[in-house]
């Protein structure tokens, strides 16, 4: 697949070309022929060679978005997937701005949430126009014509015309804004497993990732970056670096000291030769203990009010039974397998940026800011992404490549080393939580008083996103802003008295959305605490959950499904224990049951099986959907058992995969994913394997050992200490 659209392919618009105009109030489908000054905001293009070319603006990072979005268009268009359809990665265009997120950005499990309806309409509009064109050609009623796999047929007269033959005529017709959509039973592709279009080229190693971009005359650059937050270079040996064979230029930029060379190895050698001395940075005392202590102390301060329903304080203080607990979730790193990188070529009247990029809008804006070129002169080419996980939506890898290219007037590829990628990651925000919960005499949950402290995700990059001291990015899963595009990323339980309070931890660690954002940490806390309450109420954890979800059809359904499939309440093998958790976010409901055993001598956890139930509404491509849940569960298990970023001397001590362990094959359990048949509104999938896993593990560990561990990762040391404490 051509990773970028060549500009030439747009010079001549022939055939039927359907585009879109995105406005602050939504989108309007366009027939390219209707608009003279048509800016190529194209979604699909039917040409006289009978090909259907589909342009996708979302980034492909293994979630299968190229395939799934194309399936939607091809299905409604009634195109022949094998013979007609070709798929292209689109550039940075207004047409690809998410109708729900307002930017061209692949985050928030929103590619299907945002584009399901518009893409269906675009495909169906094309089909309606082709049918009309055929009916007019034959002078027969439209109702007698039918589109079948790339041709329009008139059965009565046994005539047919291909889309290629009809596209010119169809392009002269008016585009219907609300064409009739197919009924579910008419779907040809949607709902059926289709092989992902990116798989063959990835297996053949022909897929171009960011680091594989080669531009003629390109230089390779690496950057010596500060070891502590806010540290500035005191001295460095520029001459020694420039003496290294292949090094072309050493230059200081705000991010550090860049070494540009004719090859990566020369750039790396040049960087070593710099021998940079740095000052101590802004907070040289900061280490893990410092962070945890500060954020625990935050919980004794008064925070900003987020949610107030009833009188939680009163309800808890007057409750028949009261439970209080404090939790801690540390920083974890994205650690995408392909480290951050970008290639830029700044010329007088244009700038090209090639990058594995989840946020074309931001990347384009950043490049425009540096080059002073208007955004339309910034050509953003999105390569395949060697994992995204949210990290690549903060495009700080773009400006440095643009700055260096601008200075050297040459194409430049900047590669982050693995150490750069981990030490200069923007981590999943660490959090502390304290909750007081109250039960009435019947064991019903009646009050919940919740205080949490987190490093703000948005404050450093967009202070306007903080309203009245609240950063909702830190709160998803617990609370969300009204009218949020994140769809139901709030506590699901029906609690008559609820108070949630937020504190922003004052630490210089940059944080950013990490797959599922804070739904991960918040679900760990909520679902662990619900389990604590269930035990205090002497109720089965499943029953206890269901009794506070009486009006929540979808949460109830996934819990009941997972319980049935996992055999909840039935005997399990000797030495094993079981835990359950549920969570909803991004418009999808999930529940998981984990079976595990704990070696009480070593503290080692062995997870045997994870069963998941998912309700995301309509399913477009079931195969990749299950893969996303499997992969999410595997990644979440890695963070539940192993991952924690270590800090020292005001910077990041963790550096590479030798001191940042990531789950490997031997540790992965059996995973069963059950999709709940649902006709509700379509929800997200990419991040939905994450939230329920860690609490289900912790709840199972409690059932195995009697020890309630209120932090992750559940390393053998932590588990062993908790078992010992329990005995004592």
């Amino acid at each position, binding site marked *: 697949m051509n990773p970028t659209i060549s500009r030439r392919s747009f010079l001549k618009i022939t055939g039927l070309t359907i585009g879109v105009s995105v406005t602050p109030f939504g989108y309007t489908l366009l027939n390219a022929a209707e608009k003279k000054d048509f800016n190529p905001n194209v979604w699909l293009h039917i040409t006289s060679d009978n090909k259907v070319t589909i342009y996708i603006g979302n980034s492909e990072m293994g979630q299968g978005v190229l395939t799934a979005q194309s399936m939607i268009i091809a299905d409604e268009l009634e195109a022949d997937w094998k013979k007609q359809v070709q798929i292209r990665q689109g550039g940075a265009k207004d047409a690809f701005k998410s109708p729900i997120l307002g930017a061209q950005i692949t985050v928030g499990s929103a590619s299907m949430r945002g584009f399901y309806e518009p893409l269906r309409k675009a495909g169906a509009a094309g089909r309606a126009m082709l049918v009309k064109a055929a009916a007019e050609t034959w002078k027969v009623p439209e109702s007698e014509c039918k589109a079948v796999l790339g041709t329009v047929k008139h059965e009565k007269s046994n005539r047919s015309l291909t889309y290629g033959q009809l596209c010119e005529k169809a392009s002269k017709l008016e585009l219907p804004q609300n064409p009739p959509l197919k009924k579910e039973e008419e779907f040809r592709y949607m709902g059926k497993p289709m092989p992902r279009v990116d798989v*063959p080229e990835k297996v053949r190693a022909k897929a171009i990732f960011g680091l594989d971009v080669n531009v003629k005359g390109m230089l390779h650059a690496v950057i010596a970056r500060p070891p502590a937050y806010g540290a500035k270079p005191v001295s460095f040996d520029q001459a020694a670096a420039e003496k290294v064979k292949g090094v072309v230029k050493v230059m200081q930029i705000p991010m550090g000291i860049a070494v540009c060379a004719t090859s990566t190895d020369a750039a790396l050698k040049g960087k070593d030769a710099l021998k940079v001395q740095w000052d101590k940075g802004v907070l040289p005392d900061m280490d893990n203990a410092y962070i945890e202590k500060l954020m625990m102390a935050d919980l004794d301060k008064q925070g900003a009010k987020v949610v107030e329903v009833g009188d939680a304080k009163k309800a808890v203080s007057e409750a028949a039974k009261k439970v209080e607990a404090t939790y801690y979730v540390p920083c974890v790193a994205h650690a995408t*397998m392909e480290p951050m990188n970008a290639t830029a070529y700044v010329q007088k009247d244009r700038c090209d940026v090639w990058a594995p990029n989840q946020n074309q809008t931001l990347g384009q804006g950043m490049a425009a800011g540096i080059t002073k070129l208007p955004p339309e002169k910034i050509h953003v080419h999105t390569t395949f992404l060697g994992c995204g996980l949210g990290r690549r939506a903060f495009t700080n890898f773009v400006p440095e490549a643009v700055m260096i290219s601008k200075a050297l007037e040459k194409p430049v590829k900047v590669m982050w080393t693995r150490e750069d990628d981990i030490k200069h990651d923007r981590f999943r925000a660490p959090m502390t939580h304290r909750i007081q919960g109250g039960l009435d005499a019947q064991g019903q949950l009646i009050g919940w008083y919740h205080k949490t402290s987190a490093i703000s995700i948005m404050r450093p990059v967009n202070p306007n996103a903080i309203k009245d001291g609240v950063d909702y990015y830190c709160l998803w899963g617990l609370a969300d802003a009204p009218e949020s595009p994140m769809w139901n990323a709030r506590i699901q339980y029906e609690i008559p008295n609820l108070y949630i309070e937020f504190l922003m931890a004052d630490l210089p660690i940059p944080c950013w959305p990490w797959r599922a954002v804070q739904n991960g940490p918040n679900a760990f806390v909520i679902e662990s605490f619900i389990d604590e309450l269930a035990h205090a109420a002497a109720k089965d954890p499943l029953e206890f959950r269901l009794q506070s979800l009486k009006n929540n059809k979808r949460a109830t359904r996934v819990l009941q499904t997972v319980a049935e499939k996992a055999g909840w309440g039935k005997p399990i093998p000797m030495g094993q224990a079981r835990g359950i958790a549920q969570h909803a976010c991004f418009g999808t409901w999930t529940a998981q049951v984990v079976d595990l055993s704990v070696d009480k001598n070593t503290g080692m956890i062995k997870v045997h099986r994870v069963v998941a139930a998912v309700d995301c509404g309509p399913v477009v491509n079931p195969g990749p959907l299950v893969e996303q849940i499997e992969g999410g569960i595997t990644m979440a298990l890695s963070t539940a058992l192993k991952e924690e970023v270590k800090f020292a001397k005001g910077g990041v001590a963790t550096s590479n995969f030798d001191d940042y362990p990531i789950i490997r094959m031997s540790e992965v359990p059996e995973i069963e994913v059950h999709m709940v048949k649902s006709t509700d509104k379509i929800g997200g999938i990419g991040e939905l394997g994450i939230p329920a896993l860690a609490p289900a593990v912790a709840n199972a560990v409690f059932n195995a050992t009697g020890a309630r561990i209120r932090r992750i990762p559940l390393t053998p040391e932590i588990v062993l200490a908790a078992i010992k404490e329990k005995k004592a």
Partner: protein
Amino acid sequence: MISLNVNGKNYAVDVSDDVPLLWVLRDHLKLMGTKYGCGIGECGSCTVHINGKAERSCAMSVKEAKGKKITTIEGLSENHPVKKAWIQEQVVQCGYCQPGVMMQVAALLSEKPAPTADQIISKMDDVICRCGTYLRMKKGIQTAVQMTRKEGK
């Protein structure tokens, strides 16, 4: 000048002895299928075959590879059972680590055409996949084993 034999072709490259083989393959020979993941031999994204054995090209100097038969993912036949199985089982997600993973599997299967579960784990625990495709890798390995068996008949 260092002469190298890669995928059956001889190359002469002007680099110093200590340069990791990875960068010679990628920057000098433009064989981009071999990926950089960690630079310390931990993740396996850069795995190639040296005289038929899986090795980490990021942790091996070009000097050590001199005079040996180097095979990269580009040199693994398009009809190799691992490649076919990886497509059939849709193993890859982002796909970045997979060339290295497939080279690791290909070396395992050439040594042990019918590996036991333990033999698979002990070799495959050397690789990291952040997308978490490990279960699909296991399936892919089983399928590749069956394909090899059928072809052998």
